[in-house]
Every structure is written in structure tokens, then in C-alpha cells.
């Protein structure tokens, strides 16, 4: 491998992946350095899997403009990258008079943000559309342009396209130190030294730490915000069509109820500030409280099983807007404080950073016929591999994952290093039984592929 690159990207979350794609397609040689053994190991691991319009983003903010361009870009590239989208629309719901009083302001804000199809609905109209909602809802408005998407395939597709067009990805590689001299960055990493013209810090939960290591200071301090989620059984997805959003508060967008593109019903997140950047543990009390909140909104949820529970960490900080700091003298850009809209904003952020780079020493030389990667589509609302020929049979029955899908992931250009990674790439073990049926077969199939195997051969066999 060459050790000199135009661009070094620190961090392979959804923002780093989108960045790698954008700059690779613009002709740069790109190196992606990821500290964890797999991509999407930080904030991008757990989110609500929605493509937002940005209707509620602060007006005239960088966040709003990145979401707006990211959203438009997503819709124009989804088909080409084989990314499933489902236009479910969203309803912002008020549950008391105080929230009801806030609606006009939110609608004005949406319009100011260019989301012009946002429109007020009466309580009756809402209940007619969502008959399973609790009758205590008092009013709301619709945001027709919100989509359900696959959060993992999205980032994987970005990075796979970057890799297919020349990006180098190094996982398990932590940036330890770096120096900018004579117009170049010398990066010291846990996997050796690399040289790059530009460094882009997309380190998410570690953004401030990477700043300090490379440029000595950071303009923000990360205070991770944990969000716990409960995933309900697929049968519960019939309880709602739209994404159900609460009236947001200053701190959080609040607890969302929505279907997922995989056919489940998702409830979350909580918003818990903490100091740890790694503790994504769940706790029973919070999960049960979430479930109760869900039942308050949709009483029938009580009859449905929970399939999974997880927590994600949002890289929150003292600022309410994105913090994208360009230091042209050092050819360094920090993309920080991408709190909860990274999935929607990633493509927009990448374009924005691209523009900043062009203002300095970088010149776009777009690839004329970029390679398009082959990504399996895992949506419950689109054709799946099991319906196709020669797929080797179904291995995971709950999620209808085929042998071919699993082997594609294991032998592809970005193989998973752990079961978690395989789950994100294929959905094995993500369903109702959570591995009750397919663990043995998966242990056999993944032998030799993972850092930690699912099982080792025993003597009595």
C-alpha cells in the first residue's frame, strides 16, 4: 500500500464514509483510518434510521443546510447505490395544550427551512390516518417528506463505493499523533505512519480528542448522549404508517415511534448525558419506561413482543449547531458535533467539506465513470435475495437471510470483523429469535472470519 494520500479521514462513521465517497469520486486518493475493528462502531451504530427533511433544524444553521443538501442527494443516489427507501412521512404530535401552542412556530420554522409541504392537521385527521394512536392526542402537523432508510447499508454503500474507486480503509487503526510540516501531514497511527495533504477529522465521539492530538486544541468538548431504543416485533409495524414525532425540546427530538425499513417498529431514543464515550449499555428501567411511553401513544403496543433493545451514543457538545472548523493553514478540517442528524446530513456535510477543500489546495477532478458497488438490499418492503435463484437457502429464518448474503458479506471488500458487523451487513440474529435457531449454523459459516469466534471445537466432539 502506498503511504501517501491526498486526504486522510479519521473515523469511519456515516460522516467519514460519506466523506470518503465524495472525495474519492472527486479524484482524491483517500485513506480512511478507523480505530475500531469495524466501521460504524461509534455514534453511527445506533440511531433511528430516518432520512429527515431537516424541518425542525435551526433556521439558517449549517446543520439545516447540510441536511437539506444531504437529503436531496440521498434521494438522487439511493437507487444507484441499491439503498432502499420508504416514504412514510412523519406526523409531529402534540399531546397537551402547551405542545399544541408550539405547533404554529414549528410549522413556520419548517417553511423557513424550505420544507413547504408541512401542514397542520386536526386531531380527527390524525386519528383517521393513524387509528391506533391513543385518543389523547390533541393535534399535530404532517411532514410528508420523511423517509425510512437502512442506516448501516447507507454508510457501507458510501464506503464500498469509495473503496471500489481506490480508497484505502484501515480498521483497528488509531491515530495517535500527527504533525503538519512543509505542506504535509505526517500521521502516526497504531498501524504505522502515513502522509497526507489534508486531514479531515470525522471522529465523532472522539472528535475533540483527535483535534487535541493533531492541532493541540478543540473548539468543542464531547459529552456523549446515550439514546436507548426498543425494537418491537414485526407484527407491530402494522400499528402505524407515519413516523410519529413528538414536539421537540431544546435538548432532544424526543421519543420517536416509527417503522423500520426492516419491518419492525422502533421506539426511542432516551437522552441521557454521560461522560463515557464507550458505555452504550441499556438498562431495564429505561427500557420499560420507553415501552410504557410507547403504550401511552399506541395502546395496542402492549400486546406485542420486543425483539431487541440497544443504545446509541450521540456526540453532543456545548454547541447546538454542527462545528465544522477549517484550518486552511494546516490543511485540517474538523467535522464535529454531528449530534443526531448525521445520517440525514452526511452527504451534505461531505459536499460542504469538499467546497472548503477546493478553496484551498484541492482541485476536483471528478471520476468520469466511477465504479458502483454491489450492495445487498435488506429491506422488508423491497424484493430480497431469498426470493431469488441460487441463494443457497435461508440461514436466518426470522430475517430471511440467505447463505449467499452471508457469504457476500464475509468475502466482500469490507468483511465484518465480528458478529455485530455481520448483523449490520446481513441482519442475521436481528430477528425475533435473536439467534435461537441459527447460532450453530452461523458459528460454522463464520469459522476463521472473526476476531472472536462464536465457538471453538471441543474435545468431546
Amino acid at each position: 500500500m502506498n503511504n501517501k494520500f491526498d486526504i486522510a479521514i479519521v473515523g469511519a462513521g456515516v460522516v467519514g464514509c460519506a466523506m470518503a465517497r465524495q472525495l474519492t469520486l472527486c479524484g482524491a486518493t483517500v485513506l480512511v483510518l478507523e480505530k475500531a475493528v469495524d466501521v460504524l462502531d461509534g455514534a453511527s451504530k445506533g440511531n433511528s434510521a430516518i432520512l429527515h427533511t431537516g424541518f425542525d433544524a435551526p433556521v439558517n444553521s449549517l446543520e439545516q443546510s447540510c441536511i437539506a443538501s444531504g437529503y436531496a442527494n440521498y434521494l438522487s443516489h439511493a437507487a444507484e447505490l441499491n439503498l432502499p427507501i420508504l416514504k412514510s412521512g412523519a406526523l409531529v404530535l402534540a399531546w397537551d395544550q402547551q405542545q399544541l401552542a408550539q405547533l404554529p412556530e414549528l410549522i413556520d420554522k419548517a417553511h423557513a427551512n424550505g420544507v413547504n409541504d408541512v401542514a397542520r392537521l386536526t386531531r380527527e385527521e390524525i386519528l383517521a390516518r393513524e387509528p391506533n394512536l391513543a385518543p389523547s392526542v390533541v393535534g399535530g402537523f404532517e411532514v410528508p417528506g420523511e423517509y425510512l432508510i437502512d442506516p448501516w447499508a447507507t454508510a457501507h454503500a458510501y464506503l464500498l463505493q469509495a473503496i471500489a474507486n481506490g480508497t484505502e480503509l484501515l480498521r483497528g487503526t488509531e491515530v495517535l499523533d500527527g504533525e503538519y510540516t512543509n505542506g504535509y501531514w505526517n500521521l502516526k497511527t497504531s498501524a504505522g505512519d502515513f502522509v497526507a495533504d489534508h486531514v479531515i477529522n470525522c471522529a465523532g465521539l472522539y472528535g475533540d480528542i483527535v483535534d487535541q492530538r493533531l492541532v493541540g486544541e478543540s473548539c468543542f468538548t464531547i459529552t456523549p448522549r446515550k439514546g436507548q431504543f426498543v425494537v418491537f416485533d414485526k407484527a407491530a409495524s402494522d400499528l402505524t404508517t407515519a413516523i410519529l414525532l413528538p414536539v421537540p425540546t431544546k435538548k432532544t427530538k424526543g421519543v420517536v415511534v416509527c417503522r423500520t425499513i426492516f419491518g419492525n417498529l422502533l421506539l426511542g431514543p432516551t437522552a441521557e448525558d454521560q461522560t463515557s464515550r464507550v458505555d452504550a449499555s441499556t438498562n431495564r428501567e429505561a427500557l420499560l419506561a420507553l415501552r410504557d411511553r410507547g403504550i401511552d401513544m399506541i395502546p395496542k403496543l402492549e400486546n406485542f413482543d420486543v425483539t431487541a433493545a440497544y443504545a446509541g451514543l450521540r456526540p453532543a457538545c456545548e454547541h447546538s449547531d454542527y462545528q465544522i472548523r477549517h484550518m486552511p493553514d494546516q490543511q485540517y478540517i474538523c467535522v464535529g458535533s454531528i449530534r443526531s442528524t448525521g445520517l440525514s446530513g452526511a452527504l451534505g456535510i461531505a459536499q460542504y467539506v469538499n467546497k472548503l477543500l477546493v478553496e484551498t489546495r484541492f482541485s476536483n477532478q471528478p471520476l468520469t465513470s466511477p465504479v458502483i458497488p454491489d450492495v445487498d438490499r435488506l429491506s422488508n418492503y423491497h424484493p430480497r435475495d431469498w426470493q431469488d435463484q441460487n441463494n443457497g437457502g435461508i440461514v436466518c429464518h426470522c430475517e430471511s437471510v440467505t447463505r449467499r448474503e452471508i457469504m457476500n458479506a464475509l468475502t466482500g471488500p469490507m468483511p465484518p470483523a465480528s458478529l455485530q458487523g455481520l448483523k449490520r451487513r446481513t441482519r442475521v440474529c436481528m430477528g425475533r429469535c435473536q439467534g435461537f435457531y441459527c447460532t450453530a449454523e452461523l458459528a460454522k459459516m463464520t469459522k476463521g472470519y472473526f476476531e472472536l469466534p462464536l465457538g471453538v471445537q471441543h474435545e468431546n466432539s
Partner: protein
Amino acid sequence: MKIADANQPSPIDVAIVGAGSAGLALAAELKRSGVTRVVMLEREKTAGGIPRHCGHYPFGIREYGRLLKGPDYAKRNVDTAVKLGVEIRNEVSVTELHPQGRLSLFTPSGLESLQAKRVVLCTGVRESSRSQRFIGGDRPLGVMSTAALQSLVYLNGMHPFSRPIILGSELVSFSAIETCRHLGIRPVAMVEELDRVIAQKTILPYLTLRGVPLYAGVHEPKIIGKKHVEALAFVDADGKPQTIETDGIIVSGRFRPEASLLLASHLELDPGSGGPVIDQFGQCSDPSYYSAGNLLRAAETSGWCWREGVSTAKRIVQDLSSAHYEVRGYIRLSTNDPAIKFALPQRLVISNRPGGMTDMQIGLLKPSRGVLKASCGSQCVSVSKINSRPMRRILRPLADILATAPGSDVQLSFEES
């Protein structure tokens, strides 16, 4: 003489979804009774069901008059069915149930549709996952159900950990200890959230014998571990926080019906049992569908499911003989008592059809001692004493309920004494 055309197979009389203990016993009994074409659809590579990876005794005493290990019992069930002419199709997943006995299938050679005069759902049970039990903490590798462990051990010859903790104290949890013994390892603890073991008390000396300490009545179990499981933390019965180091968590028991197909179908489901609504003949809300075995409720022994398969087969034979019965109405049997998890059959047919179940099956949600009452409006239909716990078999005669007027709605309730 009529010569059968090999390219035109005869119509399928009965299709059975799931080739476990109930399904296999049912299929064999259908053939013994002279049913022409019985097809079993099994999504695994090998038929036999759960006993296939229960590498321990005791199975088969009542069915075959001898003591067998799970895999041998499963094989006997399969061999018997095959010998009698049951067609078993492995690696076939049913993807959809349609009205009047039509099924959509996924098979190794592509998608298919199948039509049968009767379909029997025998998809069994699975254990609840950690998420379904709201067990918090990290999400590391090394957390699995007993069945996943057993299939790793007995089907693959692999072991995933060497000093696990068993979460749960049902019969299956003890079977997990046996599985560990087979690996030459000893679980470091059995941890139960209820105040005492769920399995019969008589099994307690077994824990002492195997040197496995029991922690019952624990609160807030929490899994700890970054990549692989490192420990289980909990608050013990005395309110003291405990952390036990371990490299694996076996999340055992709390069985629930494997009702995925049912949930997405036109058939009526009982939220209490988690299985289909059936009548005393095992017939579902669409009369071309029957169900037997643990899909009806979680969870009975293999032997019980086997016998349930046999008796349901007899009812299907009777049904296929197309005798017409005079139906005078239906009785609904239900409960909304917080102590009672389920009662089946949920629907009783009042007719001259003989041979239905004579007992109802009841499952409890919490330890209950008192009186079980069946009432219809203000009228008390039957009363019986009850002193039992969750996961125990409870049977009560149906006769009194069957004697109520057609159209009745009979409610089960529990009164503490």
C-alpha cells in the same frame, strides 16, 4: 383399473408445518389411520425438532417404552413417520399462510405454492431472548439461549465459553447444566429473578451435586463486557450488589410459541398463550387449519406434544372423513385475570362431533393458591381449587363449560384464599 400418473401427484391431504415431536407423531398417526398423502414441511436441514439437540435423557418412555436421549428420540420419531409413508421435505420454509389451506413456500429449488385439504401448524416454541426479558447492560458476544448452546455443542461439536452463568431456573436451565457437563465445564452460577427455582423443588439437590451455586430473587441483572461477556452484575435477594465474573450467559427458558407465521396470517391469535385460537378439536379460526404441540402454549414436554399430535391426528381423520356435524353454536373461553396467562381451547364448538379435548389447559403468570372460577356473566359455571406456579401443567375438566348455552362468553378468574 385406474393408473396413477407419476407427473400428477395425488392431492395433499394434510400438510404439517414443522417436523418436531408433535408434527411427527401427528403425521405418523395420520398414515396409520389410512390418510393417503401427508407432507411435512421442515425449514431445518434435518427433521426432529428441539429434541435433536437435547443430548440427554429422559425421552420416549411412554412413546417407545424405553429411555432415550433427545437425538435418538427425534430420530425414532422421524424414522417411524418415514416408514409409514410420510413425505418429509427438509429445508422448506413456509413463508405465508393463506385461507383454505394454501401455503407459500421457499424451497431449495425456488418459490412454490402448496395446497392441502388440511394444514397443521406445529412450529413449536423458542426461549425468550435477553431483550424480551429486558435484561440490560452491554451487548457483547457470548450471550445465548440454551437451544443455541445445545445446537453448537451437539450439532457442531463446538463450545462458546467455559464458565458460563445460567440465567433462569426452569427444567431447560438444568438441561443447560447437563450440556455444560458434556463439555466438561461447570457453570459458575444459576441466577433466577423469581424468589425460588421455577422447576420442581425436588431438583434442588442436583445443583448441590453439580456444585452450581443458586442466586434466586435477584434484581436488575446486567450483562457486562466490551467484546465478549466478562461478568453478570445484579442485586441479590438481600439487596447487596454482586458481580460474578463469567465468559458466557445462557439466557434459558421463558418459552414462547414460535408464532411468526401466525402473526402475519389471517388466523386468530391468542395474545395470552401467544399461539393460535383453537377449539376443542385443535381447529383454528380458519377450519382448514389445525394446530398441535407447543405452538399452542409454552411449554409442555416432548411427550405431551407427541400425544397431543396423536390425538389431533385422530380428530383430523374424523374431519376428513367428511362426516357432517350439526353445529349448535360456540362458547368463548377467555380470561383477563392478572394471575392467569392463558386458557385453551379458547373456543368451544357445541355440536354432535365426538372426540374433542375433555380438559382445558391453564397457565399461570404468578404463583397462585386459591380458587379457579369459570363464570358466564354473573353465573358461576365451575369452581376448583388451585395451588400452583407458572410453567406447571394445570388441567381442568371442560364438561361444565360445554354445558353452558351456545353463545356464552365464559371467563376464567382466580380468587386468592
